[in-house]
């Protein structure tokens, strides 16, 4: 079958030409195919080269967001109220862990967790890309951090991640005003479209944190890292440091705010203090306060339910959102109207026999035995109801309403905070529209001592008092003095803003001021417990009935009265009487009598004001602002 090896001959010429033709043809086909490959290379590398370069770049480069430290909140002296602290989380990077079960066991003992808890966390993160670390435990304390760092050799794959976290230096102080942060919602994301807001960002949800979020939040940094196909960082390419947020310098005075909140204790209520000649708010306290730390990082359901169920309504920012009957503080309105309408002079007197009869109804004074002959000063000092019934009766409800409006009641003060309430100044027209009933003249008497339909907010009352003190000037309440950038430069300043001046005779202001002074300084003054050393205080108490007196008087002792039947205690004041600087208003819900409960608290706040060296509100030098070590 095989031919002998040596017998192979040279090919004959015809066959040779045939083979040559075939080889030529095969070579041609081959070159054609090589040409296709070259064309393809040309297409991919030359024609589409830059496009593929971009795709290769986006393949390899991952952008990591770096959280920016949020701006601080400072009080008017530059004292830090809210700042940031590092929050340490224990994270787990799966691919770096060869002996996982041993590591989990060790980690469990360090973190004081059950191994199953750790495994649950790891399992929960299992469907994420492997390079995304799983959070094992958040916000660990220093000793734990040190233990983990010291054992890092035995804990491969376990790392510590640092995030800036809000640090409330004074816990829940001024909580309603400060507000809290939460993860951005879908609607908020929509609202801030075009801004530097992303899914998962934290955003101010309430108070100043919300209103000044764009200033406070700073700019996120970006870290460009080269990643491999699994997404693990291989090297850092470029880093753009985050820009810290701007600080807010507030008008708030920490000492006064602290005095106010301490004085309110666990009761419900509000304290407002305002500079008489600028409108700067030195105190804006609402009790009970909100648990700010519980809000950060998502509030738990039980805490939230507790807040909702609390009868003291902790979620309401009471100085601006709660409306109360003004009670005797309203006598300022009635007195002013009577003076301006020439119904009384300083010497006019009315007789108080403990009650008066009007249109067949008997209207009582709080003092059943009566005050005898009472002029304006005594009427105000001893808060004689009969005196003011007489004024109200002569003025009529609509005139009272006009003066109430002149003193800033019945409308928002324009403070920056959200959801401010209007209050209510009743008129004949209002009642007809509201209840479709005519006004009863007897109701005017109730209104004149602040017990009718009228409703006010503590901040309105404060502004009214300040206006009486300064002779009718209404300033917009200021909460923020300035916005300071991280370099210490002032970005924006908020100056006092005179909104309107209520015209009235000088003598009217003088008489009102004198009568308010008497209401604190007189021997029989209802507000005498607000007196402070060396400084003359002028003010007015109020005790707002929540239910008709008759029902409450069944109880011998105030303590026996059920909470919801107890009176609201009011006190509004300014000082020094000769040259007013500061106005303070206190309201204690269901606290009892204004003189007994509210006035002493106002005294505390006023003392906190005068105790301090009177530093004017100026922006502090950088060195002082930056000392929080951010």
């Amino acid at each position, binding site marked *: 079958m095989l031919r002998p090896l040596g017998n192979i001959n040279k090919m004959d010429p015809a066959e040779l030409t045939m083979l040559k033709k075939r080889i030529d043809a095969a070579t041609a086909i081959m070159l054609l195919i090589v040409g296709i490959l070259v064309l393809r290379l040309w297409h991919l590398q030359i024609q589409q080269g830059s496009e593929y370069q971009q795709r*290769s770049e986006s393949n390899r480069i991952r952008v990591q967001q770096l959280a920016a430290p949020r701006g601080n909140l400072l009080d008017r002296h530059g004292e830090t109220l809210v700042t940031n602290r590092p929050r340490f989380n224990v994270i787990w990077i799966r691919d770096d862990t060869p002996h996982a079960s041993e590591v989990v066991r060790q980690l469990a003992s360090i973190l004081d967790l059950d191994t199953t808890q750790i495994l649950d966390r790891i399992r929960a993160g299992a469907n994420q890309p492997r390079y995304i670390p799983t959070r094992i435990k958040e916000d660990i304390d220093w000793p734990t951090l040190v233990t983990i760092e010291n054992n890092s050799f035995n804990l491969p794959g376990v790392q510590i991640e640092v995030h800036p976290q809000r640090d409330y230096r004074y816990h829940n102080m001024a909580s309603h005003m400060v507000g809290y942060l939460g993860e951005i919602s879908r609607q908020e994301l929509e609202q801030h479209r075009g801004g530097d807001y992303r899914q998962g960002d934290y955003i101010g949800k309430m108070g100043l944190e919300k209103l000044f979020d764009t200033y406070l939040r700073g700019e996120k940094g970006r870290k460009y890292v080269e990643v491999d196909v699994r997404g693990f960082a291989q090297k850092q390419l470029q880093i753009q440091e985050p820009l810290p947020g701007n600080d807010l310098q507030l008008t708030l005075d920490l000492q006064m705010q602290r005095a106010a909140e301490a004085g309110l204790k666990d009761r419900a209520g509000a304290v407002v203090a305002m500079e008489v000649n600028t409108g700067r708010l030195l105190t804006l306290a609402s009790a009970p306060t909100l648990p700010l730390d519980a809000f950060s990082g998502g509030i738990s359901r039980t805490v939230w339910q507790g807040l909702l169920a609390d009868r003291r309504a902790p979620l309401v920012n009471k100085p601006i959102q709660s409306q109360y009957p003004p009670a005797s503080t309203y006598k300022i309105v009635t007195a002013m109207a009577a003076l301006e309408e020439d119904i009384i002079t300083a010497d006019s007197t009315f007789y108080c026999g403990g009650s008066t009869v009007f249109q067949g109804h008997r209207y009582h004074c709080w003092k059943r035995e009566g005050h005898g002959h009472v002029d304006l000063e005594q009427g105000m000092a001893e808060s004689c109801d009969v005196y003011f019934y007489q004024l109200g009766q002569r003025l009529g409800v609509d005139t009272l309403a006009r003066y109430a409006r002149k003193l800033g009641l019945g409308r928002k003060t324009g403070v920056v905070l959200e959801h401010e309430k209007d209050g209510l100044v009743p008129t004949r027209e209002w009642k007809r529209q509201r209840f479709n009933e005519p006004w009863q003249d007897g109701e005017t008497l109730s209104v004149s001592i602040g017990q009718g339909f009228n409703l006010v907010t503590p901040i309105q009352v404060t502004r009214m008092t300040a206006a009486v003190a300064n002779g009718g000037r209404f300033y917009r309440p200021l909460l923020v003095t300035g916005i300071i950038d991280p370099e210490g430069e002032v970005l924006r300043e908020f100056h006092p803003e005179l909104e309107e001046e209520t015209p009235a005779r000088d003598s009217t202001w003088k008489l009102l001021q004198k009568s308010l002074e008497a209401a604190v300084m007189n021997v029989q003054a209802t507000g005498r417990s607000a007196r402070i050393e060396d400084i003359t205080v002028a003010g007015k108490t109020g005790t707002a009935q929540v239910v008709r007196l008759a029902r409450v008087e069944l109880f011998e002792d105030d303590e026996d009265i059920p909470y919801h039947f107890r009176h609201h205690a009011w006190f509004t004041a300014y000082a020094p009487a000769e040259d007013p600087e500061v106005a303070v208003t206190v309201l204690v819900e269901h606290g009892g009598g204004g003189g007994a409960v509210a006035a002493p608290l106002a005294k505390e706040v006023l003392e906190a004001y005068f105790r301090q060296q009177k530093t004017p509100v100026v922006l502090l030098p950088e060195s002082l602002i930056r000392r929080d070590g951010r």
Partner: protein
Amino acid sequence: MLRFDRRLLTNFDWIMLVAVIVVALLGLVNLYSATALQQGLGTSVFIRQVAYLLVGFTVIFAIIMVDYKVLTKWNYHLYIMTILLLVAALVIGTDVAGTQRWINLGFFRLQPSEPAKLMLVLTLASYYYRKDTGAGFTFRELLVPLGLTLLPFALIVRQPDLGTAMMLIFIFVSMTLFVKLKWSTLLTMAGVGLSFVPLAWFFYLKPYQRQRIMTFLDPESDPLGTGYHIAQSKIAVGSGATFGKGYMQGTQAQLDFLPERHTDFAFSVWAEEWGFIGSIFFLACYFFIVLWGMNIALTARDKFGVLLAFGIVSLLFWQAFINLGMVLGLLPVVGMPLPLFSYGGSSLLTTMAAIGILMNIRMRRYMTGS
């Protein structure tokens, strides 16, 4: 026949030797970059490839010592040995990712489907050389070589290794078309071949193989599965642009985006790092070997030499075309190394043996037998 003629030395094919060294060195340079950062591989792969190359050159020199005609005598022994190895791979082969392609020899994992390609070239060359009457083959006469092809084909498909199996068909078709056929034979062959396509699709291809082909036809349908390999390879090649990203700077390769980058996708690494210029340089070097092989076929002293050289050339050419077509996104992903350039001992040694045979034919072009 073992007598060594001095003329052999004067006719030694230096050109082919230099061309092979150049391409092999390009492969080593590229392999170093592809594996430098790869954990668990790294230098051991590089050193192994250097060792295979040294062994390969020894194989070349061993092969050129003996006149290639001896192969007409031994080819059936070699054929049977190869078939036995293929069977062995199926029976005792190492299972890697669901395929049984390797026989573990301890120091070396032999992939018998690689030498099987060369054995088929050899077998077909001797068969056609012996049977050619000059009148043209009839279909009946082609049944024997078809059978000789389908036996290893079936064994390799069983592994399963579709790429290598298809390679056997490419060799059979190329070599059969090269010898003289009757027109009727040609038509019958085409008809039979075409009718096999749907049969193979439905009965022979594994789901993942079908998936690969479907993905190739519509890469967007499965961007993270099979299409991912093609997409990443295209990104690598394309992003190399004109001048490339620089040696060891290819991000697609260095950051693991390229799969199989030291074996089947080695050229992606090269194209990414050296760009269009480097790619053209490589193609020029590689296809110079192929063209030189054609020249060897043209100048061979006898018809067996012509057939053998042509078969080897088509082996080198089709493998390169399928590999490059796959890397450049022109063909579906099948396991197919780029001869001389990709990492892999079986492929490299087989290729070097094939080159040795070519050089052997070249050296003896003026010899008229003893």
